């Protein structure tokens, strides 16, 4: 596998995603096709990551964890970026679509972020000798995840759909402040966590497998957000159809 192959697959996945958004006719099957592709890529990621890729220079085989850990965290950052984009869009023009999409992106982002942090902990044990260290990158990531858990909690505690959408949009913008802190924490502070790599400093087969893992997780990110969006829209519709919880005071009198 060359580093170009994952980019070709990425182009196909992005085309399917854009088709899903722009062409209603492809929506019934686009997510299924991307999901099936993701399943095949996940199985092949086991082969590429565990067998095909060479061992890392210092971490040796433990470095193979990075092919699943890094894509998970990337997908979390991508989902949170979609969340804040939808939040800003909602505040500019109120729409239940952007509100539902923001909710689904936040939940899927928390899922990918939590799994990514757990994988990082598994990697840290043989590499650093500890499961967890109060390092700037780890602290900022934890704060970011807690902020989005708080965002989801705020949504579940607010009954009025319009108020929930407005408040959570503001909370989403506030939560997003943590993202650049997470990204640059390894450069701003003396961190045990290594700084970001780039293809010029990483062996080509490793770049290829890392990209393969990222595209695999992108497939699942897309499918998860599509299905979670349907749930959010269904709940919105049900909330609109419900009668008010209690009659206005004037009517009671």
């Amino acid at each position, binding site marked *: 596998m060359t580093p170009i192959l994952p980019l070709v697959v990425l182009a196909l996945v992005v085309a399917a995603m854009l088709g899903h958004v722009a062409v209603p006719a492809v929506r019934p099957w686009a997510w299924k096709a991307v999901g099936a592709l993701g399943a095949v890529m996940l199985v092949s990621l086991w082969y590429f990551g*565990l067998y095909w890729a060479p061992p890392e220079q210092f971490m040796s*085989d*433990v470095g193979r*964890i990075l092919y*699943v*850990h890094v894509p998970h965290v990337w997908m979390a950052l991508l989902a949170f970026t979609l969340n804040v984009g939808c939040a800003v869009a909602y505040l500019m023009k109120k729409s239940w679509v952007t509100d539902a999409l923001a909710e689904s992106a936040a939940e*899927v982002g928390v899922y990918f972020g939590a*799994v990514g942090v757990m*994988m990082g902990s598994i990697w840290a044990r*043989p590499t650093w000798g500890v499961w967890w260290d109060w390092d700037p990158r780890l602290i900022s990531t934890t704060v970011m995840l807690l902020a989005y858990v708080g965002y989801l909690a705020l949504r579940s505690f607010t009954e009025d759909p319009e108020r929930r959408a407005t408040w959570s949009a503001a909370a989403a913008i506030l939560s997003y402040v943590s993202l650049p802190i997470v990204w640059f924490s390894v450069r701003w502070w003396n961190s045990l966590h290594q700084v970001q790599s780039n293809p010029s400093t990483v062996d080509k087969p490793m770049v290829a497998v890392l990209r393969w893992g990222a595209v695999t997780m992108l497939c699942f990110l897309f499918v998860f957000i599509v299905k979670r969006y349907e749930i959010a829209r269904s709940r919105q519709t049900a909330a609109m159809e419900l009668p008010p919880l209690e009659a206005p005071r004037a009517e009671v009198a």
Partner: protein
Amino acid sequence: MKPALAVALLLASAALADIARPPPAEAPPPVEQPAPPAEPVAAPAAKHPEGIEKGSAGVIQGGWEYVYAAYGLGTAGVLAYAASLFVRRPKKSAA
């Protein structure tokens, strides 16, 4: 009687002479020669609590159980979250 007395005196004088004899001079302490320079011995690598070792070049050996755990967690997470979305899927209305 005289010979016996002479023998006794002879023995006594010999004994006294032995006691009075100065102790033999001690051999001079050996001059300590500087030890030849020892061959440099590499310090043993720190033992990881779970048996993972770093070789002399600082390369981690082993740790496959962590690798499998991470890949297993990723796959199980995808399956579990997909299952949770399936369980929460919107019910189709009868109408």
